[in-house]
């Protein structure tokens, strides 16, 4: 390969290009911006990239690349802060980190969890950069080997993670995943555009729910509400126990896990069309399956942090492979990155790798350097920021409500976003209360549209082959070693999951009590699923009908079996798990509905007066009445919160939700 002979010198040239004070300056700028964007929950790399895109034209290409790559590379590093400290997924790539990271923070080991996460991120990021260096020459056949059946198989592999995350009763996990899949089908169908569980009169539902809102609703709202009810700091002891040195040690002990999960991250990131949103789940599933002692997962096992965090940074290096080799974005942020490249005068694709190898390699170096700078800064900041977990949560909660409402509003910029957040948050609260796996729900939701798309495309191609070449034609198409290998992995994953999943979250028993509440919730779910199935039968276009119908029917069977078991079981059966019957939630000084009422109040006020005015009223009332702090502190905290949100929205060029008032009166920004 003559290309290889040029690769070494080009790599060195690229290093010389990037090691200029100006380029390093832009890289650090990108890193800082990425860190800030990542820290705020719900704002991913796309928001950050859109911010710098207007400045790209006319910039020095290397500086522009350094700025963009610096930004993309560190978002999955700093998004760990909110995942671990607050239990809020910082971005789609660190949803799985919440599962063990947040319990660690509650134990007062936030510093340790963060340090382990950042070292893992650093390692994953460097691993990704290394793979990218060589893979841009060899990846072509590998990526082309992933045909539609193979991608469908990988999607199934992702869904098989439900088995290990299902919790004590596997059937509940299946129902939760089924609900997630069904939630993902709401709106205009992917293949044919028929409305599902929505009509043209409900325009909001037509577009379906965005991942940001579902992620925040399912994970963040239940945790915030639960903590708020208990009125204490996140760290139970109120102090920071083990620090970041322990985290480093944890990582060195699990270095192989980090290597393997980085490999998973690169691989999944490299396949265009799979997207980065599953990568952390697959890595988490693998981490749990491969661990000997599974008893601590979900309660604060450091390996549950190391696995996903290694993979989600490695994925960016992997995602750049198809972006550069084919000019096809591996994820949405890569799509924006391609746009930025065009402004710099380069067209991502084989042409660029062949003719501008030195510039291409500055991407690799930027990626590596950004990971080092980003992770270094994060480790440095870990302990001070981890102190957030020792603050009385009631003072933190209004800021969080404000942030997630703002993040949710970015989805569609309609008041409907806030309503959706509230409704899904409520579902999340109940799933948590009755011990349904929220992770399973989210995996179902994330994979829903691609499971449907690949299944439908596979079916279309297979039936066309059937008509032409008969059964053999189909077999030729499907029976590749790759597809077979992934399917074997999938079966193994389900098998291990079913055999051992019980032990993962099974040790501490959720309190059980009265039958009534769990049964009512179960009936409500069953009703929704039944309506979905009925709705699916009314769809005319087969392509939009089959998937919700199949998933709905399976879920309905699961629901019926659960209801049947509920009828027979005694009151103390695990199936009647209800967190309100004891434990932390049961003993909380504040009620669920009163606490949720605060958030509903913010929503209602927003609908009337617009977000900023509503926020001001909400903050003043909350700090004064609920948190009972002095008027001075109330005013100070409220003012700083509003300043923060205005600066953030102003710099991102975003608006706030308007209310009824704004229809009658023209107000200046930010009151619009």
């Amino acid at each position: 390969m003559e290309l290889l002979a040029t690769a070494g010198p080009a790599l060195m040239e690229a290093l010389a290009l990037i090691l200029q004070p100006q380029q390093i300056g832009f890289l650090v700028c990108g890193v800082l911006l990425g860190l800030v964007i990542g820290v705020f929950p719900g704002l991913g790399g796309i928001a950050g990239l859109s911010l710098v895109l207007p400045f790209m034209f006319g910039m020095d290409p290397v500086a522009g690349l350094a700025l963009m790559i610096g930004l993309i590379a560190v978002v999955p590093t700093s998004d760990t802060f909110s995942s671990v400290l607050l239990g809020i997924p910082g971005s789609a790539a660190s949803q799985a980190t919440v599962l063990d990271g947040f319990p660690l923070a509650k134990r007062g080991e936030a510093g340790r969890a963060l340090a382990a996460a950042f070292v893992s991120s650093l390692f994953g990021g460097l691993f990704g950069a290394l793979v990218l260096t060589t893979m841009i020459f060899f990846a072509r056949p590998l990526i082309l080997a992933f045909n539609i059946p193979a991608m469908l198989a990988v999607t199934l592999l992702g869904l098989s993670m439900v088995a290990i995350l299902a919790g004590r009763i596997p059937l509940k996990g299946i129902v939760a995943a089924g609900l997630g899949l069904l939630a993902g089908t709401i709106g205009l169908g992917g293949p044919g555009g028929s409305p599902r569980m929505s009509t043209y009169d409900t325009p909001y539902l037509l577009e379906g729910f965005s991942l940001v809102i579902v992620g925040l609703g399912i994970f963040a709202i239940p945790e915030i509400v639960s903590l708020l009810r208990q009125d204490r700091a996140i760290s139970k002891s109120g102090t920071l126990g083990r620090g970041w040195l322990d985290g480093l040690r944890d990582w060195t002990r699990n270095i192989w896990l980090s290597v393997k999960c980085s490999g998973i991250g690169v691989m999944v990131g490299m396949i265009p069309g799979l997207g980065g949103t599953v990568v952390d789940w697959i890595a988490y599933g693998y981490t749990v399956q491969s661990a000997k002692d599974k008893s601590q997962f979900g309660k604060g096992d450091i390996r549950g942090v190391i696995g996903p965090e290694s993979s989600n940074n490695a994925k960016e290096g992997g995602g750049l492979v198809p972006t550069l080799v084919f000019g096809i974005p591996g994820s949405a942020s890569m799509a924006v990155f391609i746009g930025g490249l065009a402004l710099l005068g380069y067209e991502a694709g084989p042409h660029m790798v062949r003719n501008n190898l030195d510039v291409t390699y500055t991407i690799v170096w930027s990626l590596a350097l950004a990971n080092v700078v980003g992770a270094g800064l994060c480790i440095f900041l870990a302990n001070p920021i981890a102190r957030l977990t020792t603050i009385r949560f009631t003072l933190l909660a209004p800021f969080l409500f404000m942030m997630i409402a703002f993040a949710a509003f970015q989805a569609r910029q309609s008041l409907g976003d806030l309503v959706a957040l509230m409704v899904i948050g409520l579902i999340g609260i109940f799933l948590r209360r009755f011990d349904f796996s929220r992770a399973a729900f989210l995996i179902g939701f994330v994979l829903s549209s691609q499971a449907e798309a690949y299944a439908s495309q596979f079916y279309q191609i297979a039936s066309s082959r059937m008509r032409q070449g008969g059964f053999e034609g189909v077999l030729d198409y499907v029976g590749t070693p790759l597809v077979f290998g992934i399917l074997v992995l999938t079966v193994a994953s389900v098998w291990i999951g079913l055999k051992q999943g019980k032990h993962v979250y099974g040790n501490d028993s959720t309190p059980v009590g009265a039958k009534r509440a769990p049964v009512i919730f179960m009936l409500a779910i069953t009703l929704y699923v039944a309506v979905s199935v009925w709705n699916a039968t009314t769809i005319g276009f087969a392509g939009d009908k089959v998937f919700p119908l199949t998933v709905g029917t399976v879920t309905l069977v699961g629901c019926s079996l659960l209801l049947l078991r509920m009828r027979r079981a005694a009151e103390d059966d695990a199936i009647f798990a209800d967190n309100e019957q004891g434990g932390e939630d049961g003993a909380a000084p504040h009620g669920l509905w009163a606490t949720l009422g605060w958030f509903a109040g913010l929503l209602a006020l927003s609908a009337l007066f617009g977000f900023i005015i509503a926020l001001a009223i909400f903050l003043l009332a909350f700090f004064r009445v609920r948190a009972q702090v002095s008027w001075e502190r109330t005013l100070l905290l409220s003012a700083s919160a509003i300043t923060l949100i205005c600066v953030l929205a102003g710099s991102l060029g975003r608006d706030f939700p308007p209310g009824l008032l704004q229809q009658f009166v023209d107000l200046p920004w930010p009151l619009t």
Partner: protein
Amino acid sequence: MILKSMRRWVGAAACLAATTALAGTASAEVNLSGKTVEFVIPFSESGGTARWANFMAPFLSEHLPGNPTVVVRYRPGAGSVSGANWFQEQDTADGTLIFGTSGSTQFPYLLGDPRVRYEYNDWKVLLVSGTGGVAYLPPETAAMMNGLDASGLRGQNFIWGVQSATGLDLVPNLAWQMLGLNVESVLGMEGRGDGRLMFERGEANIDYQTSSAYIKSVQPMVDSGMAVPIMAWGALDDDGNIVRDPTFPDIPTFKEVCDATPDCATEGLTWDAWVTLFTAGFPANKMLFLPGTASQEMVDTYTKALQEIFARDDFWAVASGELGVYPQMTGAAAQAAFRLGTQVKPEAREFVVNWLKESYGVVLE
């Protein structure tokens, strides 16, 4: 001391304001200084229209009077129908709101999609820019063509990846049908790039790409003997005739191929429908609008800024890869292209709606 200097500042500011106001009335020119222009597109951050808008925004900022900040805002949903419905209700007349659309916004409008609540004729068009498209085959299949006569392909079973039945892919789909090819559509691609990957993986055996994607991704395949272009959709000349695409002067147009192929007519209802869809989707692929309430003065200001941008050499050095070498039409040319792209004969519309229903089961009522 502080008071004194403050007073001086206020005085200076008032003076400045007065001069600006005077200058404003004297030349009656629009000045957007200190304002923020929102460039709204009805798509998400990851699409081609987003690339186009983000590409144009900094240039607009530089060439509009007063150098306003131009920010791109995204209002995705329902394949751009939601955003266009939103724009229909806007009445911002001070030039701080512009709206960019693509062929995907025109098609639902032309076909009478029930979700469409917008009316193109209410808006003020500023810019219409086009693109082209090239269809290609694997070499062994392409060899079955007899010169321009495509009837040799009729015995083949073709598969190709399609984004949605009612989108831009309608144009090639109708072309396959007119040539009598047996092409099965695999619906649900997220972009044309996915369709191209299917072709590269051997899962699809016919495909087309728009011009810039063809040049940068398909041309290398053609050079290495993995694909052969069979026809381009062509371009419109000043009289509205379909001629060879200036970007691909060596590739015959669909019209030429159709003429040379038995049972493919370049007149009549089907052909009219194809031309209408082609015109809406390709020569008028991207459009830029001001709300209907904007004054002619504002339209002129924007037109002037756009013309200045297109007159820049360094713009084209970068833009040719991004936008292709297609005309960027402003002023009267934009008006003409706009009319071609947003009008459809009722018979042609009815034909397409029926054809969609029969071939795809897609009902537009």
